[in-house]
């Protein structure tokens, strides 16, 4: 299979500038849309090449072409110096390429082990599974990752970050010489990300070449040796990571300057205003236990916490998506106990869910139907009729207001890039006119430019009097909040005013290493 690779071949390894992968002049059209145009990249063994670019720049498309999931219109691929053609994923596997794709690609009903074994055992004894050796291999991989996901638990019962670990584990089940990772850390906390970095170090030490895609630019500069930047499907340039800083990299990516996330400079402190939502002792075993918080009108309240601390579950309780075990909630002074998201939205509470593709969008529908989904019922229209013309008009306004980049409001959302999809999900709930908008990880996988635009939307909403509850694992972006609460093991353990919500402080609160302070 992959015996004759550069790794085993000392003559190749010792040559002056060996490359393990070259993609030359790759172009790709979708329908009429030019996703990639004459893009070339070069990867050397034992090095990390970062691909950077805004949402829709074509990073994933390039990787998917390499993986055999898409076919390029033009262009050549060389692996270890020899030209190859990759028509299907199994071709890529045979060439020693391994992938973590941007969208989680696991079988929910399979156990972690089954997922890791998928496609790994091609040759088995006459097609019979060798369960024992697969398990041994999986344990080895987990040891290497330093993260034990229970192998016999179904993936659908695992938390999101654990699923990513399974996905990472799968890519290491085979002895690959090239590994491409498409936003592997998007759902990771800092700690988990650190763990990934050390795995990357280990792999590169073994001579594996790594393609690394991320919107976390700080991370890119830390991990990568080389950086290739794409914009609108075209190559902007390739740089040595050492020559870049965040500002210059951002400039390359978006082609203009982008301001840093700034603390919100409010003239009046919203926290002194009237309370909108009061939550006392909210419990739903085992994820949420005795959680209490207060949210004021027009306030942006951040929720920090580690993965599995129960933030998503808390948000789901607030909109009635799951039944509450115990506790009280009041909204605007009146008791509030929604039994379904319908009742929550009617009361003016909406949740922008964590996983946009599976929970937020109908991928095969158009931009306009997706935008209208949470506000189908026209206020004052007793008949319950629906006017597509009105929906299109509202969608057009929303597309302009939120800066959504789509060919038209009739475009299928499945074809849009991640950042634009996320803006549509946010926009959908904003159009429902909530007085309280909950956002669960709103900027995961969103590029630096679009991220700023989403912050703008959030700030504008708050300024107009909407209260915001923002769940985020990216503690830097919590800077836009007025206050931040910290959740640990299902409870709110601390409340931190904006000025003191530094990354380090929040992280230590999350781990419980800092004493809880009176809020």
């Amino acid at each position, binding site marked *: 299979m992959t015996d004759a690779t550069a790794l085993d071949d000392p003559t190749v390894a010792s040559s002056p500038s060996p490359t393990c992968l070259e993609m030359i002049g790759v172009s790709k*059209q979708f*329908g*009429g*849309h*030019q996703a990639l145009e004459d893009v070339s990249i070069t990867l050397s063994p034992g090095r990390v090449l970062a691909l950077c670019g*805004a949402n*829709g720049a074509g990073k994933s498309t390039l990787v998917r072409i390499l993986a055999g999931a898409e*076919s390029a219109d033009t262009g050549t691929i060389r692996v270890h110096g020899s030209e190859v053609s990759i028509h299907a994923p199994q071709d890529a596997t045979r060439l020693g390429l391994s992938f973590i794709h941007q969208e989680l690609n696991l079988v929910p009903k399979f156990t972690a082990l089954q997922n890791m074994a998928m496609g790994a055992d091609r040759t088995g004894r006459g097609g019979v599974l060798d369960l024992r050796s697969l398990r041994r291999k999986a344990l080895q991989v987990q040891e290497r990752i330093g993260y034990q996901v229970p192998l016999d638990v179904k993936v659908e019962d695992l938390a999101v970050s654990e699923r990513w670990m399974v996905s990472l584990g799968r890519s290491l089940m085979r002895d690959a010489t090239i590994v491409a990772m498409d936003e592997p850390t998007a759902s990771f906390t800092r700690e988990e990300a650190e763990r990934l970095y050390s795995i990357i170090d280990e792999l590169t030490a073994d001579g594996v070449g790594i393609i690394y895609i991320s919107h976390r630019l700080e991370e890119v500069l830390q991990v990568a040796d080389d950086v290739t930047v794409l*914009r*609108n499907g075209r190559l902007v340039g390739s740089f040595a990571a050492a020559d870049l800083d965040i500002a210059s990299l951002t400039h390359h990516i*978006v*082609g*203009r300057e982008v301001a840093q996330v700034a603390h919100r400079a409010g003239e009046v402190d919203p926290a002194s205003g009237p309370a909108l939502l009061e939550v006392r002792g909210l419990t739903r075993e085992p994820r949420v236990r005795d959680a209490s918080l207060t949210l004021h009108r027009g306030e942006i309240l951040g929720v920090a916490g580690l993965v599995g601390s129960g933030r998503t579950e808390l948000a789901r309780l607030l*909109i009635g*998506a799951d039944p509450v075990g115990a506790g009280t909630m009041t909204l605007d002074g009146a008791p509030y106990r929604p039994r*379904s*998201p*319908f009742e*929550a*939205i*009617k009361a003016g509470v*909406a*949740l922008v*869910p964590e996983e946009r593709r*599976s*929970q*937020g*969008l*109908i*991928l*095969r*529908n158009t931009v306009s*139907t997706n935008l*209208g*989904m*949470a506000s*189908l*019922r026209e206020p004052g229209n007793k*008949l*319950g*009729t*629906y*006017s*597509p013309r009105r929906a299109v008009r509202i969608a057009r306004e929303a597309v302009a207001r939120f*800066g959504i*980049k789509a*060919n*038209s409001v009739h475009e299928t959302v499945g074809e849009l890039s991640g950042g634009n999809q996320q803006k549509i999900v946010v926009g*959908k*709930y904003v159009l*429902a006119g909530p007085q309280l908008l909950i956002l669960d990880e709103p900027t995961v996988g969103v590029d630096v*430019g679009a991220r700023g*635009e989403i912050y703008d939307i959030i700030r504008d909403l708050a300024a107009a009097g909407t209260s915001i509850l923002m769940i985020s694992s990216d503690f830097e972006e919590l800077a836009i909040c007025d206050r931040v609460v910290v959740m640990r093991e299902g409870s709110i353990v601390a409340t931190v005013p904006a000025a003191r919500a530094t990354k380090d402080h929040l992280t230590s609160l999350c781990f419980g290493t800092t004493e809880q302070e009176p809020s």
Partner: protein
Amino acid sequence: MSTVTLDPTSVVATRPASARIWKWFGRYGALLVLGVLVVGTSLLEPTTFATYDNFINILNQSALSAIIAMGLTFALVTGEFDLSIGNVASLSGVVCLSTMVNQDIGIVAALVLAVAIGALVGLVNGLVVTLLNVNALVATLGIGTVAVGVNYAVAGGTPIGLPDPGGFIQLTLGRFLGIPYPVFMMFGLAAILWFILNRTVLGQSMQAVGGNPVAAQLSGIRVDRVRVFAFVICGICAALTGILLASRTGSAAVSGGDSYLLAAFAAAFFGSAVLRDGEFHVLGTLVGVITVSVGFNAIALIGLETYWQYLFQGLLLILGVGVGSLARRRAAAA
């Protein structure tokens, strides 16, 4: 806000011609198959097939299937299945006729009764699916079987005839402007159902639930309720077909409507390839039913052997859907 994407209009223009042709085929492939069928048969049987009378005749023959299939479309749009529709049609015919015989109720009352039966079975289907959380295929297969049981309990399994079916038979035999009533019913119902699906909040909600139930739920759509409504509409249409079938012959039998089940599925799936890419819609289902009727009519007029009939019908189904699917795949690749 500065936009850095390319101007979309300039991008679209670069699309290759072959992609556009394939796209056209993808959209109109199923209609093309219908067109070829019509033209072919017209050439073979110019005097009998290509006449106004035969045209009306085909529409008339399509009406009952169309009504039940358009109802089924609602269940399919919502992402569910309904295997009970054939049994509901049978039940409706038998119950209405036996009530007309025994209680001497009028035609309007019988129609109301049919709607009530359909709505009831649909409601039960919906509740079993949403409250008991049973897969729709099992639930409707089970409820359909129960409906057969009720049917036997009502009529004991023997066919029921109306002693004086005059007025009742007129329901399907009567004509207005030379066009049989069922044709009006079919188009009228199609218009109503189209409106419900495309121009009401309920219909939009159904499409959303079918597209992604989780997203729909989180967007404040009452998913379970919408599902129940879809089953109810499906049941009502099935029951209407049942009573119209009874009217055609003035009698009703325990398994009279059963054959509509697979026919309706075939039509709806055929229809999902008409103008759309695998989405169920009322208009498509209507075209599907009419295509099947044209095919059957063509076979009967040309006078093919039994085995040809089946071969032809099977191929028609696969071709009608396949041409479009294949073309769409090509268009995506081009």
